[in-house]
């Protein structure tokens, strides 16, 4: 049903969101060929051996999983009941563009990548929003900073 643009727009019109008082801002500190990039997805991607995201809780799961930047495609899977990930299972780049980033690193368009990428399962609401905003998203941001990222690309599902 969400493949229809009108349905998506209707859902968005009725969906309440948490809006910040101010917009955080960090200027780009150096040219992109010198920047180390982190990837963050809300596509529910995780290593096959890691615990899957919680799917029985109607409010979602605010936790995140780490994905090594060199993880092979067949080491990953997707747990996310709120979008059709048939195509993303065929090609992970649709929600976590690891291979594209690797290509652009090789061509010198991006300086590098963090050792790990980070994955959440979208559809986080109710009491888990507070956990996400005050705990898990901050934990992920601290780890991305510890891995010395200059830029981060956030990819939705």
């Amino acid at each position: 049903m969400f493949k229809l643009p009108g349905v998506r727009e209707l859902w968005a019109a009725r969906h309440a969101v948490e809006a910040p008082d101010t917009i955080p801002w960090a200027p780009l500190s150096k040219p992109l060929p010198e920047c180390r990039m982190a990837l963050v997805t809300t596509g529910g991607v995780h290593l096959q051996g890691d615990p899957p995201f919680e799917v029985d809780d109607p409010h979602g799961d605010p936790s995140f999983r780490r994905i090594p930047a060199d993880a092979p495609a067949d080491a990953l899977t997707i747990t996310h009941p709120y979008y059709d990930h048939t195509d993303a299972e065929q090609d992970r780049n649709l929600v976590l563009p690891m291979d594209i980033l690797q290509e652009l690193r090789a061509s010198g368009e991006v300086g590098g990548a963090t050792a790990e990428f980070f994955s959440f399962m979208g559809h986080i609401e109710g009491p888990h929003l507070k956990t996400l905003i005050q705990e898990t998203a901050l934990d992920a941001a601290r780890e991305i900073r510890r891995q010395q990222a200059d830029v981060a690309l956030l990819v939705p599902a």
Partner: protein
Amino acid sequence: MSTLGISLLRRISEQVRPPRTYHLRFPFGHALGEPCRRAQQRFIFRDCLSALVSISEPGGIIDSPLRWRRGSFPGE
């Protein structure tokens, strides 16, 4: 650390107000386009890199000119 978020719903991004947004009118699960269409995916990724550089004000949104399953890309 500078950030850019891809958005598939402009209305949500206008409310959440991330620092920088690249908006595409693509279906959920397809932020980088169609599966195994690498030239299209590279184009979108490069557009995101350009947006990282060109958005100079907090909350800036760039609308992608791409349309779902339309257009061709260099290398195809």
